[in-house]
Every structure is written in structure tokens, then in C-alpha cells.
């Protein structure tokens, strides 16, 4: 019984995701406006035009840890950003605090360059390991924000308190800052230090807003449906508890 509920949730999510991905629709689904993501889209276009760089910081959530989902979402966003800005004179740079994530960021940026038809512009050093401890990673990522003509810093993934240092570095350089994390304590820091912080699950919505991938959109719709189901279940459980049924 204890395993049946999570298994049921996984199966339901899988069915929703696959159905919403492959069902042909006349028009794409409409999502609410998220100001920070609209700004990111604009910043990506501007970076290509004025020859500046986007710095994507992917956090330090290892894929072999429970925080890997935030990193996977950040990689999906990196792919979208990479495809849109690889043709720039200064292609995007990705920093991460986990070596596996650093290797995947290189691979993702290379795939983005190939997808954009500019294989020759890929630089292996564009996907980097910032450092292996939280603060050494922050120090490494701050250096990129300061020294490499960065116009927009995108902090997406699993961060801890060190994200405060990254937002400060970005602010000092007058860069556009878009930040989201899966960790609640780091979200509180971002709320205080970023102009337009993304809260909670908005981290997982970012790839759907930036690109046109039907799977990303389906994923966002599946999340919305599941969220409503969770809300209804919570309300039903509270009601049943009140009348003494459970």
C-alpha cells in the first residue's frame, strides 16, 4: 500500500506526459505570463545582437542525487539558450559545481551548436566546472560573471546559500539576472536579492517558456493537472479528518 500511491502517481504522470506530448493540437497551449522568463527570452536575443555573453550557472546538484531533477531541467534550459545564442560572437558559458553536470553541460552546448548549424563555433571550455565545494563553485562562477563580458546571468538548478554571492556578483556587473532554484532556503535568498525571482516549480517551467519543444509544454501541462489533483486530495483529506473518517 505504501508503494502503491507513489507508483500510481508516477504511472499517471507518465500517461499524462506521453498523451499530451503526442496528441496533435490545433494551437499550442497558453501559459500565464512569467515576467522573468519573458526577460530571459529578450536578453538572449540582445546578447546575440550586442556580442555579449550569457552565463548559465547550473548549480551543484549531482545527477546521482535526489536533486538531479533540478539539474536536468537546467540542462534542458541550457540547450534552448544554446540553440538561440550559439551564433553569437561570444557563445554562452555554463558553470556547474558537479563534475558530471559539467561534462553534460559541455555535451549540451555542443549539441546546441550542431542543432544551430554552427558546429565550428563550439568551444570545449564553454562548459566548466566552477569548483567542487559550494563556495569554491560560487567563487569560480563569480569570476566568469566578472571577467567574460557577460550581459545576462542565468542561475538555474540546485543551489544553497552560496547563491547570494552569485546574485551579488551579477548585480555589481549590472547584468540581467534570472534566477531559480529547487531549494527552499536558497529561494528565500533569491527573493531578497534578485529583481524578479522565480519561485517553487517555476524552475521546471523555464524550458517550456523559452523553447518550442512539445514535450516541455506537455510536461508543464501534466504538472498543472497533477497539482490540481494534489490540491483536491489535500482538501478531501482535511475534510475527512474533520468529520472523523480518517
Amino acid at each position, binding site marked *: 500500500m505504501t508503494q502503491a500511491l507513489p507508483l500510481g502517481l508516477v504511472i499517471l504522470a507518465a500517461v499524462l506526459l506521453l498523451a499530451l506530448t503526442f496528441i496533435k493540437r490545433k494551437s499550442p497551449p497558453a501559459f500565464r505570463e512569467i515576467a522573468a522568463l519573458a526577460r530571459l527570452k529578450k536578453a538572449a536575443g540582445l546578447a546575440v545582437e550586442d556580442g555579449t555573453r550569457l552565463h548559465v550557472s547550473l548549480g551543484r546538484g549531482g*545527477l546521482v542525487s535526489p536533486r538531479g531533477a533540478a539539474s*536536468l531541467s537546467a540542462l534542458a534550459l541550457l540547450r534552448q539558450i544554446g540553440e538561440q545564442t550559439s551564433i553569437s560572437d561570444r557563445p554562452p558559458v555554463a558553470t556547474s559545481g558537479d563534475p558530471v553536470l559539467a561534462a553534460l553541460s559541455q555535451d549540451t552546448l555542443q549539441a546546441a551548436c550542431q542543432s544551430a548549424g554552427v558546429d565550428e563555433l563550439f568551444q570545449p571550455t564553454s562548459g566548466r566546472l566552477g569548483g567542487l565545494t559550494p563556495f569554491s563553485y560560487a567563487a569560480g562562477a563569480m569570476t566568469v560573471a566578472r571577467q567574460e563580458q557577460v550581459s545576462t546571468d542565468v542561475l538555474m538548478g540546485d543551489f544553497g546559500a552560496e547563491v547570494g554571492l552569485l546574485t551579488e556578483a551579477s548585480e555589481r556587473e549590472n547584468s540581467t539576472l534570472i534566477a531559480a532554484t529547487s531549494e527552499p532556503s536558497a529561494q528565500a535568498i533569491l527573493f531578497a536579492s534578485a529583481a524578479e525571482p522565480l519561485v517553487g516549480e517555476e524552475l521546471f517551467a523555464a524550458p517550456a517558456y523559452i523553447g518550442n519543444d512539445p514535450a516541455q509544454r506537455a510536461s508543464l501541462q501534466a504538472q498543472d493537472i497533477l497539482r490540481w489533483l494534489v490540491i483536491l486530495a489535500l482538501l478531501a483529506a482535511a475534510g475527512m479528518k474533520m468529520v472523523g473518517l480518517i
Partner: protein
Amino acid sequence: MKRSPVAAAIAISVGLIILLGTFVPIPLFAAVRLELVQWAAILAGVAVLVGIGNLFSVHYQKVRRREKGWFYSLTLLFAMLATLLAGVIFGPTGAWMQAALETIIFPVEASLMALLSVTLLYAGIRLLRRRADWMSALFLGTVALALLASVSLPVIGEIPVLSDWISPWLTYGLAAGGARGLVLGVALGALTTGLRALFALDRPYGGK
């Protein structure tokens, strides 16, 4: 580099075996799952070496091209090689390595932590200037109350009503409820993201 169907097939099969090993109580699945997770741990260990190689390469090229901040990169390369040498010669528990940890790495991390607390205080002060709305005011008010409740003030000590009533209500009632809401949303996002990778709709392992 086109998307390899073999890579996708391996990723999907491994993902399904891990998922089945978690939910279905069949010993074979659990054993295979354990073995695969151990392989992943070994690969993650190797990835640390590759990552350090990447860090070295990035900073070496900065020094070679005399890019902005190259001197810091040179310092990093020197420190990296010196630590590696000391580790190989004296071992990870040797006196030199312990000295490096206790006199350089720990103090530097502690300094960054101290810097972070000042940075956060400054960010809190600037918050109302940046976003003067009721959410910011509520955030700062809550932070101030939580801080006041957690410290012992000179002469009066702990503030009675704040420490005994208001702070626990804020921390274990409102804040914990809000955090649970955030975590539920994040968990649903993590679930669909994981499933996208499992069905190869997202392929973080490269290819067009």
C-alpha cells in the same frame, strides 16, 4: 554527432530497471538496481577527475592567452599542482595536507560564509528599494521577527512573547506550510522532468 538510438535505449532500459527496482518488490530488480547505482557512483568518481582536468584546462588557456584575470588563474594552477603533489607524496592525511586544509581551505570558506551574511543583510536592506510592495514588507518583517526571536538581547535576554509564541507559530506554522507547498510543486516538477529523461524526450546525454 547525431542522437544515438543505442544511447537512448540504454538510458531508457536503465531508468526503467531503477524505477521498477524501487517500486516492485522483486529481488532481481533490487539487486540489478543496486549494481547499477554502484556503477553510477564509480562513474561519478571518475567524473571528478575529468572535472578537475576541465578546470585545469580552462585556467591554463586563460594564462596562455593572457586573458583578463590571468594572474588569478596562474595562482589557481600553482595551488592545484602544489596540492596534488603534496597529496601524492605525503598522502591525504599527511601533515602538509592537513595544514593546507586547516590554514587555507577552511579559513577561506569561512570568510566567504561571513561575506555571504553581510551580502544577505545588504540585499535585505535593498529589497524595499528594488520592490516596494507588500510581499517584500511581509518578507522583511518575518525575517526581522525570526532574527529577534532567535537572539538573546543584552539585559532583557530573550523577548518573552516573541520567542515563546510568535516565532514558533511563524516557523512551524506559516513558514513550514509555505515550504511544504513549495516542495510539493518542486516534487511534481522533478517527477515530470525525470519522466521526460526516462522516455528520452529530453536527452541530456547529447546529440542533435
